[in-house]
């Protein structure tokens, strides 16, 4: 008995050149699909969807093709009385969309269309006694929300609003036997959570608490024979892990432990030559989420045609430069 290695096989006719123009066209057209079923069904994450689209356009130097005014107005109408931001009009506020909103407005250098003080209060109010963060008033706890909270406050220059020591204590309590992190204490390691926790620790200036050699090993073992990365052992590769895993490796100073050229080939194979955009794996349907993380992953790999992306905040480095934000990275 032996376990087969779960992986994909990249066909010989899979795309091997970077089709940036096609991706820009895909994203530019995506927002106009307001009568589309899939688009409407994803309304519950619209704020994040806009963040994915705008960020990838900015990374490709095409941000001007998006409608800044319309988006700013939309975001303004999503701020609730409690200060939190919702994914869309009529939806409830949540820390996930509060971060996305701040990220979007940071791209436009326009955060002040929102009531920033109220937003800071909203985030502060989500911190629990044990240092963890709830996503909203309904109390779901997840280290993703710890990341969202500090990333939001870092972009606003308001990290002093929370109890950072307690927040760090909670995140560290989610560290596992394999050096990775899960959503809550006792939860299994997962690349998405690892990205959130290493990103959190970077912002908190506590990266030295990570066991970089052990975690780096777990992360580089995500690379499969196809060159793609999975999110945890024995799962299929997915282009979004080119971000979660790669950014985590960059943050802990071990990005060279991945075979870069094989990963690059995998990411390029996930492009759709017809429609533009990236899918989770070669041959699947594309979407803006995977398009951002495919392009961002390529940026981390040093792709010349794409702007440098910051591995902690997944935003263009030049935006963070303007804000004076330089989160720590291990060397």
């Amino acid at each position, binding site marked *: 008995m032996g*376990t087969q290695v779960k992986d994909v096989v990249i066909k010989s006719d899979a795309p091997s050149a970077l089709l940036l123009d096609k991706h820009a066209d895909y994203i530019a057209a995506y927002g106009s699909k307001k009568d589309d079923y899939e688009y409407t069904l994803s309304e*519950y994450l619209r704020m994040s969807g806009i963040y994915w689209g705008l960020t990838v356009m900015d990374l490709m130097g095409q941000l001007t093709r998006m409608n800044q005014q319309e988006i700013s107005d939309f975001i303004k109408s999503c701020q609730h009385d409690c200060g939190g931001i919702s994914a869309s009009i009529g939806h409830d506020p949540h820390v996930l969309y509060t971060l996305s909103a701040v990220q979007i407005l940071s791209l436009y250098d326009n955060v002040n269309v929102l009531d920033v003080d109220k937003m800071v209060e909203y985030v502060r109010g989500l911190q629990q006694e044990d240092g963890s963060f709830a996503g909203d008033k309904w109390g779901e706890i997840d280290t993703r929300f710890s990341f969202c909270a500090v990333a939001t406050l870092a972009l606003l220059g308001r990290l002093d609003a929370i109890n950072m020591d307690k927040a760090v204590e909670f995140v560290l309590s989610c560290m596992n*036997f394999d050096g990775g992190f899960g959503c809550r*204490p006792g939860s299994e390691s997962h690349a998405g959570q690892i990205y959130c926790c290493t990103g959190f620790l970077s912002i908190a200036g506590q990266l030295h608490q990570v066991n970089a*050699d052990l975690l780096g090993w777990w992360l580089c073992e995500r690379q499969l024979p196809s060159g793609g990365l999975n999110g945890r052992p024995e799962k299929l590769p997915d282009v979004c892990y080119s971000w979660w895993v790669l950014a985590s490796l960059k943050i802990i100073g071990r990005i060279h432990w991945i075979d870069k050229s094989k990963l690059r080939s995998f990411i390029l194979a996930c492009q759709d030559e017809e429609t533009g955009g990236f899918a989770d794996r070669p041959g699947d349907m594309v979407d803006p989420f995977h398009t951002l993380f495919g392009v961002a992953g390529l940026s981390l790999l040093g792709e010349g045609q794409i702007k440098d992306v910051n591995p902690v905040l997944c935003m263009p480095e030049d935006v963070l430069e303007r804000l004076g934000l330089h989160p720590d990275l291990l060397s």
Partner: protein
Amino acid sequence: MHGRVKLKSTAQQEEEKRKEREKKLKIYVAGRDAIFTKRLEGVLDDEALQLTQQLLSSNPDFATLWNYRREILLHLETVREEDDVQKMYEAELLFLESCLKVNPKSYGSWHHRGWVSARLPRPDWARELGLCDRCLSLDDRNCESEVHCWDYRRMVVKMSGVPVDQELQFTDRLIGSNFSNYSSWHYRSTLLPLLHPESPDPPSPCHQHSHSSPPPSPQTHSHRVCEEQLLKEYELVQNAFFTDPNDQSAWFYYRWLLGRAEREEMISCVFVSREEERVAVAFSRPVNASSSGLMLVLDGQPQRVEWRSVHPHFRHSPVWICALPPGTISDIINEHNLTVHWTEKHTHRDCALYTGRSESWCRDSATDQELFRSELSVEKTSVLQSELQSCNQLLELEPQNKWCLLTIVLLMRALDPLGYERETLSHFQTLKEVDSMRSAYYGDLCSKFMIENTILKMEYAEVRVFSLSDKNLTMLCHLDQLLLVTHINLSCNQLLRLPPQFAMLQCLEVLEADDNAIENLDGLYYLPKLQEVSLKNNQISKLSDLQLLTSCPKLTCLDLRGNPVTQIANIQSELTELLPSVTDLLI
């Protein structure tokens, strides 16, 4: 968004699909708008429950609808009898079960289920546990639901007080049937320290976490588990990877079992030098001097000193330096007694500076600290030796199995790092061949082990010379252990830079690093005793790369032959201007 294959279809098929989606969209939007209208009007009735139910069945990620449902349910709680509330929430659980069948990975559904379970007047935790069992059996690990399911299980266990050993047996069963392995091993790593702690005072049982502080993370160090149980675990894991040598999870878990104990928090070295009138302190882990309560006492008098880390890059550093007031210790006739207090950790270190001695130090060796290898009991040694034998047998059957190779290396490190050096190097060579995607990882890991061995050899020889040339070194680490080193030879390796951490070599007098690929000298930062630097045949290409050398006041010899920088016009005069005290310059 995930796993949706793109299918080609005819124009007619496309048109049919489009019409169908248009219809679905209309229904959906009507439903959504009706719900939003009701909510805005503050309506909290059964119709709203029905409408949200319809939409959530096909779109459970629409989080706002779960919120609305909770508002309605909370309201109904206030106007219904307990029995009706019980029925209401049981119906909710039934609804959630169907949602989870359709989409087992929705955060919204799982969170709502947890919320409902907690609000039931008479919760049925056994049923919830049964749901988790069923959910796990549906999952084929191709699905994110597994992670949600286990997290939900942990919540149920906590709420209902399921004993730890029962959960441990549950993982036994799963592992035995080769199912959900990684999650099971992971769960074991969290349960073992609770059930079989190494110390007589166990941490609080898993179902009684205190609310004010998060539980300790015993799972990061297998040494929190008592040795007797640990040795049993070795057997369990060995069975797993002998049954299936490609089952990754067992190998990951095994690596954890081979891990060393957490280092005791302490000051590992204090060094004092009369000439520079400075004190250097090395800690067992990176600290921030300003928040750690570092205090220096000289001859019974607390000193007002400013601590700085070895490089401005690091707010947290294992090595800190301070300058003493001029004249305090410079006279070689005087004897002095220094104490460094780490008040945050209630520990301190003394160092005596004798008459006639220009410097002094006090240090625990790497061996004393069990830095690179734990002291093993006779029993554990024997177990590990037989493990090593078994793994070697497995390797004969599966010579390309990288998990086995790496584990053999780790076993050898645990048993006898110096004795097995040759085999270790050979295995790393094989690893780079059979698992070439990760050859950079193996290169760095091998470098780390060779550095550890060199430190051990240096300590046994009781010298302050560190020599590690021609060993394919790809990186430098453990530099905090080299605080006392006076001579270092890193020639003929594959180093790309001397990182900022290199500045921890505060006693360094001679640096030889010829024949590498060094292009960055960030670590040659304020090294007060550095006199000779040889960097022949490297990749230093700009004058600015050498700027930092001006911070080393004693530097007199510099060999830069074979570097691209020597090809720059007027380099001789540029360097003489930059480094006037370097009288012996070779380019």
